[in-house]
């Protein structure tokens, strides 16, 4: 046993990794519970990958086979219903966790130097996950999926100048067809995941390098921390267990339904809207009037989103006060304002 251990340790970078991990510490303060969120995101991603691979074994991404294969998984494969429901609910929980992780790090100003790249890779991962959610939603090829994708890709057409081209590129044509399905499948299965793994890898390495950021408001108090290994890790695992319990409960009481097979010739179902995590954009676009000056309202909306997105991406460089380790109430207010807007618009979108 010892010989095997010695053999591995002298050849593989096990010792170096463990050394880093053993030194890792997690700050302990009033806001420490938010440190769980990154781990929850990672855990849910792992759940997605595992359940996704399992689903991949039986799923068939062609127009006439997609719905049938999902029906097969739901009804004829042992525990297929469970795997599928977990995959769907885990996606939703992942989006919630990502939102909370994004805004908690924003409010705690964790983006300040030297963690600018950690923040930027995080934003990129967030966008990639939105893409994963959008592409995955189409794959069951039921009425809901088909029309939500149709509506969603229509919004892309509102991007000024390249909107139409972008829409046709996404759809693989003018309409949502089997071609759309196969390209969304490719995106969902490996193009976006590969991007995600690459960016996530960088994100995790940077987190290990810089350690956990301590919020400014807590800097005056005596600094306390606990070792990551085993103290925080065990707590992290505990939280993961609770998340698993919640997933199980949701999968059982609110199982994902099969729905009706997609019928492109049928009229759009009334009240069709994209998934909840897109609702705030959807609702906000609806608010814009048809024309502002000589521009189309939707174009202004999309440009607005683009600008806000870029600003959020670059916030480490914009928040000069936090960079100097000072209080930055302006950005705190901006953060709370964004949270309130997104939550409000999402609720409104749901009720609409």
């Amino acid at each position, binding site marked *: 046993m010892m010989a095997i251990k010695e053999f591995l340790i002298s050849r593989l970078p096990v010792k170096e990794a463990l050394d880093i991990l053993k030194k890792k510490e997690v700050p302990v303060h009033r806001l420490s519970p938010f440190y769980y969120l990154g781990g929850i995101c990672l855990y849910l991603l792992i759940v997605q990958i595992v359940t996704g691979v399992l689903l991949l074994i039986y799923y068939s991404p062609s127009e006439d086979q997609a719905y049938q294969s999902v029906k097969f998984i*739901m*009804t004829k494969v042992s525990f297929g219903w469970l795997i599928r429901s977990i995959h769907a609910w885990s996606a939703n929980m992942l989006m919630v966790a990502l939102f909370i992780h994004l805004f908690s790090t924003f409010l705690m100003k964790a983006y300040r130097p030297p963690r600018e790249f950690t923040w930027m890779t995080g934003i990129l991962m967030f966008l990639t996950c939105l893409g994963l959610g959008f592409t995955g939603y189409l794959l069951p090829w039921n009425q809901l999926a088909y029309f939500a994708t149709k509506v969603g890709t229509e919004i892309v057409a509102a991007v000024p100048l390249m909107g139409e081209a972008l829409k046709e590129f996404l759809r693989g044509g003018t309409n949502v067809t089997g071609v759309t399905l196969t390209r969304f499948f490719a995106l969902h299965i490996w193009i976006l995941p590969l991007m995600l793994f690459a960016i996530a890898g960088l994100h995790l390495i940077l987190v290990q390098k810089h350690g956990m950021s301590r919020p400014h408001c807590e800097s005056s108090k005596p600094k306390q921390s606990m070792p990551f290994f085993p103290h925080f890790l065990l707590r992290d695992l*505990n939280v993961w*267990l609770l998340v698993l319990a919640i997933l199980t409960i949701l999968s059982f009481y609110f199982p994902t339904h*099969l729905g009706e097979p997609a019928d492109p010739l049928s009229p759009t179902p009334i009240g069709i809207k994209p998934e909840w995590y897109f609702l705030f954009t959807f609702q906000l676009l609806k608010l814009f009037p048809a024309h502002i000056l000589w521009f189309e309202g939707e174009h202004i909306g999309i440009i607005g989103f683009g600008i806000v997105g870029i600003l959020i991406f670059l916030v480490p460089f914009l928040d000069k006060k936090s960079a100097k380790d000072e209080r930055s109430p302006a950005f705190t207010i901006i953060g709370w304002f964004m949270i309130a807007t997104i939550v409000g618009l999402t609720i409104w979108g749901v009720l609409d």
Partner: protein
Amino acid sequence: MPARFNKSYLLIDRIGFNCMRSSSPFYVLLFIIFGLANSAKTQQQSTCVSCHLEEVDEDHTKLVEEHLNGVHAKRGVGCEGCHGGDPTAEEAEDAMDEKAGYTGKLARHLIPAMCAHCHADPNYMRGFNPNIPTDQYSKYLISGHGKRLTKKRDPKVAVCTSCHGTHGILAPNDPSSSVYSLNIPNTCAKCHSDSTYMTGRNIPTNQFALYAHSVHGEALLNRDDRAAPTCTGCHGSHEARRPEPSGVANTCAQCHNYNRELFVASPHNAAFEKNNYSECEVCHGNHAITKTSDDMLLSDSEGVCQKCHDEGSKGLLTAAAMKASIDSLKMMINTANGVVELGRTYGMSSEEPEYQLRQAHNKLVQARALIHTFSAEKVAPATSEGIKLAIEANSQGQELMNQYNFRRRGFILSVIVILLLSVLLTVKIRSL
């Protein structure tokens, strides 16, 4: 059809219009001369068409265009085929000369005979279509329309052109034709639903309205189902008239043969014949045939049996027994359906029970047909077999719910295990 042959016939027609094609030597000579002359010419548009298409007035232009679109023009029968005259003459006086056989717009009561001139001649018609019927005129003469025309000289009664049109006559299997199966009810309704037009004639004018809401009308008019009967399907087309009471059953039996077979073998047959009731019509109506329901057996609103059978009579008791039998099958199917639906909404695969339910439903359809035996004992085998199938579907549906319950137990256990592990882990954490 070689053009030469066509044209020669028309020439003979033109010359000897009001008499049958006689074979006197003069006409034979003329036939040869004009036939040879014609063969030298290429297809020449008739002067009737060229003048009336452009130079007369708009109404005539429309008529000529319709004619050119119709089946007669396409087979080489021109204006002179019905109106007479000379289609080669340049001047109107020559073309529309009585000596050339011109008859102009024919009086209405002469139209059937005029059409029959060709259409009742099998020798002539087989040159155009070997299978075309040539008995329309003789049928027309025995029809309600024909009789009124010949006996009463009724100026408003339908003649050939009333239904088929005048100039743009299309083949009956052309969907634009006024006598295409889907268009027939509207064609008949043109007169028969017009109460002003039909005043003084002892006939109701609500048939189309009733038919349009009937099962047959909805199938034909709303769903374009050509298998559904039109007016002509039951009344006949050229021989159209009110069906005799004894003929009604045979009319319905064209499609509903099985029901009629059962009826004829039942006690109702003798009773209906004795009283000269028209079989199917008494219970189902004629134009306003609505969707049947089991309530027709026994209910205050829709019951038909109680129209004849008194309270407590054997007939009404049989009706009640049949209804009870069918109701029990329906109830079993509904119960099974509910269970299977529940299983399906919970995500279970419900194909097998759905298949069984379909079979059970087939038995219900059969049982409903068997009502026409008017015997509860004969209805019973179908309902009992149907009930057996529904029970099996029900138990298969229960199986789905059992699967669901297995999942629920698994779920509760797994949540307990997860929470237990979490508790233990918490204790371990605190012990650090």
